[in-house]
Each structure stands twice: as C-alpha cells, then as structure tokens.
C-alpha cells in the first residue's frame, strides 16, 4: 500500500515540477484539506512528491526559462548551455547534483542536525555580514564604471521591491512568484522575443562527468543545504549564490550541480532534521509534522521513502528531459517564448492576483535594466538578500 502512495507522490511531483508556478506546498495543503485521513501513507506521498519536484522543476527552468522558487538561478547558467545546444547536459548536471547530494544528505543529516544546531546562533550572527560582503562583491565585480553604477541601481531597486513585497508593506499572495518570474523569467523572455533569439538543435548524447568534481560540488551543496535547513529566511537559491561567491571560480557545470544538489538536499535535511530537533523550515516538513508522530519507526519509513524517491526521481527526470529535449527544436523558440509568457502571466494572476501582476511588472522592469545594460542579472538577487539582511540585523 505504502509503495502505491510513494509512486503516486512521484507522479504528482512530475506534474508540479514541469508546470511552472504549481508549488508543492500548495499541493500538500490541498491534499491535507481534501483527504479524510492524513497518515504515514500521505506523509510518504508528500515526501516523494517533494523529492521528484526538486529534480523535475529544473526542466522548465532550463528549457523554457520559466522560473520557480527553488530553481530560478538555474535559468542563467542553464540558458547559457541551452544556447550552445547543451540543454540536456544542463539538466543532467542538476540531476547528478540532486542524486549525489541527496545520498550525502540521507547519510549525514542525523549527525549534522545534532552537531549544527550548536552553531546556529553563530551562523545567524554571520549571515547578514556575509550577505553584505557578497552584495558589494557583486557590484564591484562588474567590468566598467558604467556597469558598476547600473548594478548598484539594480541592487537598490531590487532590494526596495523585495522589502516592500516580502515584508507585506504591499501585501501579495504567494509573493515570491511574481518577484522571481519578473526578475528572472518575464524579463528574459521579453528580451529574447525582441532579439529574436534562435535555439540551435540540442545535442542528444551520453556524457561523462568527473567523479571528483561531481562529489565536491555535491558535498558543497549538501553542506549548504544542511545550514539552510536550519536557518530562517535563507532559501536554497540564496545558499547556492552565497556558495558561488565564497568559493570563487566555480564553473557553470559545477554550479548547476550545486543548484540541483541544494534543492534536493534541502528538502531531505528539512524532513530528517525535523525528527531530531523538531524544527521545520520547508513547507513539506511542516505538513509532515502535522500528520505523523515523530518516532523512530516513522523516521525509518521516511528515510526509506526518500532513498526510493531519489532513485525513481533521477531516472524519471533523465528520461523526461531527454524526451522533451529531443522534440524541443521542432517548435519555434519564439512560439515557446510567447506561450510561456502568456502562461506565466496567467499563473501570476491566478496565484497572486492583480497585485501580483503589478509586482511582476515592476520586477520585470528591473530585470530588463540589468539585461539591456549587460550587467549581471544575478544583481536582482538583492530582492531576497536585502530583506534577509534586514531580518537578521533585526531592523
């Protein structure tokens, strides 16, 4: 019986992953609302759905530029590889990262949870200063005085917009969605339509990856995910971004592995850590806490479900990505862009209302400033970083 729920969860995870804007937290809450009995079977369903989602949500991000909260940073390196005909490789890299970091997370999370919880006050003290250094380094890394000035403007505008929306001065439902889609999705799609970007035929081939660099990236991802799973207000994407800035020269390929790894490992850590210290950070873990007792037997079931889901998700995501990429060049990219634009606008209105549309329009404008001035679009990350700094400084 429990295996059926596991497979059903994986199936739902494919749907939530490939449809941009459909978030697992919303689906989990809907399940709790409609199902008469919430028990261990439902917990397994929610976990397998979340793990599958963490693998498949990179597919629309990389192929269609449709961003989601956990994967939006993959649009930038993913799109770079897509333009080179390496879209499938980009997705494979996130899958490898997810798989290896997921295995590491299962093995080390109990020790990590007990050990790391001692250092949380110290890490919480360091976080705002680390983010401030990263923000300044982002601006200073621009090549000319002109781009440095524009980067500063983009950081300030993004930060102000982030504070206004995320601190509810302008209350919007699902506030992350319109912000992310504007900064990283709609702005890039509009620019792509204007530039008439053409996507070359994608390479469908077997790839080989260096084991050492794959494991190194996955360890970085797992460690970051472990920290993120205990810290409020710091998300998976922010963690990947901070890691890239701290470690320095990380190749596009390794960065994609880290992004994939953090997304999956964060989900696993948050659920397993819940059993050890009773704290939750993700929506999935919060739902699990509501429906099952946090006892040893349940923990074993949850860990086994995570292991099975990791394997099933990696295989499914590999085949799904290959299936879509093989057919990708048959559709005109301009048509995909227009369809995706309409879909994103529709989902934003549906999930965040017309207020969300206003937020999306504003963040799109800021994103367009960055793209058209050839400054790095990651400067828009200030929309998350500045509210996090403000939160940790207690302002």
């Amino acid at each position: 019986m429990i295996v059926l729920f596991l497979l059903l969860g994986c199936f739902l995870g494919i749907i939530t992953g490939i449809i941009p804007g459909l978030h697992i937290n919303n689906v989990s809450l809907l399940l709790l609302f409609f199902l008469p009995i919430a028990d261990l079977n439902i917990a397994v369903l929610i976990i397998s759905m979340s793990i599958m989602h963490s693998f498949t949500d990179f597919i629309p991000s990389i192929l269609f530029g449709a961003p989601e909260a956990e994967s939006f940073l993959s649009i930038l390196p993913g799109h770079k590889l897509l333009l080179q005909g390496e879209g499938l490789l980009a997705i494979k890299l996130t899958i490898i990262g997810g798989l290896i970091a997921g295995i590491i997370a299962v093995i080390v999370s109990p020790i990590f949870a007990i050990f790391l919880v001692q250092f949380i006050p110290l890490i919480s003290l360091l976080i705002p200063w680390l983010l401030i250094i990263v923000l300044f380094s982002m601006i200073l890394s621009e090549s000319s005085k002109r781009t440095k000035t524009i980067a500063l403007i983009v950081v300030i505008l993004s930060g102000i917009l982030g504070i206004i929306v995320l601190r509810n001065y302008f209350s919007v439902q699902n506030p992350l969605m319109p912000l992310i889609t504007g900064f990283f999705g709609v702005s890039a799609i509009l620019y792509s339509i204007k530039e008439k970007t053409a996507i070359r035929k994608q390479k469908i081939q077997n790839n080989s990856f260096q084991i050492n660099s794959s494991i190194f990236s996955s360890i970085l991802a797992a460690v970051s995910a472990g920290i993120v799973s205990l810290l409020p207000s710091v998300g998976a994407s922010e963690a990947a971004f901070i890691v890239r800035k701290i470690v320095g020269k990380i190749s596009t390929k390794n960065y994609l592995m880290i992004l994939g790894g953090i997304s999956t490992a964060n989900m696993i850590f948050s659920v397993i850590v819940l059993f050890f210290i009773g704290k939750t950070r993700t929506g999935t873990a919060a739902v699990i806490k509501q429906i099952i007792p946090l006892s040893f037997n349940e923990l074993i079931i949850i860990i086994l479900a995570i292991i099975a889901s990791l394997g099933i998700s990696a295989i499914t995501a590999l085949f799904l990505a290959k299936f879509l990429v093989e057919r990708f060049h048959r559709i005109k990219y301009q048509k995909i862009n227009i369809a995706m634009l309409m879909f994103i606008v529709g989902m934003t209105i549906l999930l965040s209302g017309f207020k969300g549309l206003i937020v999306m329009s504003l963040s799109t404008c800021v994103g367009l400033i960055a793209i058209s001035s050839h400054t790095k679009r990651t400067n828009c990350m200030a929309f998350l970083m500045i509210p996090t700094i403000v939160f940790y400084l207690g302002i």
Partner: protein
Amino acid sequence: MELSDSTILKVSLILSVLGVAFLSVFSLSLEPTQTSIENISSKDIGLRVSIEAKIIKTQLTQNALIFWLNQNGKTLQAVKFNYSLEDLQLLQEKKQIRITGTIQKYNKSLEIVVEKMERIE
C-alpha cells in the same frame, strides 16, 4: 574516474529497487495487529494494535483525552495526547470507533496510547 550516464542510471535503479523493497518489508512489519480487548494481556505491552470498540465514557484533561472502550462487556482505558478538534467530536458521538495505538501499563492497569482514531461508518 568518470561518471557516465549509464552509471547514473545504475545507481538510481539500485536506490529505487532497494528503497522500494525495504520500504515494503518495513511497512508490513509496522502494520498493527488486529485484536480484541478480551485478548489483550501483559505480554502485549509495547505491541502496536488496532481495536474496534464503542466509547462508553470520556474525560478531558489539559494534555490528553482519556476515554474508556467497551467490546463485548470488556473495557479498556485509552489515552490520546495532542488531540485535535476532530478527535473531541468523535468522542462526543460515543459511537463505535477503530483505534490504532500501543499497549502500555499505567497505574498497574493496561491501557492503549492512541495514535489514530477513526469513525466506523
């Protein structure tokens, strides 16, 4: 050393098969034993059981719901910690219910610590 597509598939396949196999076996071992109040004795302490019985009396404390079950004239005390509003409603109906929980000894008597309680339609 390099990691090829086929290695990734093999690792994923092994994880899937092992995960599903152990999950099936372990979840079966966790299935509660269907029993009756009459058959419960001291040797069942720590056993996870499922019982269908009628609620005859309830008592509400700050931390727990305490209630008494009757089945063919035999009674058993049950306790539910972290109870919900639905649990309270279910008890007020005083109808036939199915409970799953673990047998334990409290004040020299056997009782069941309830995990799940549901209405029998």
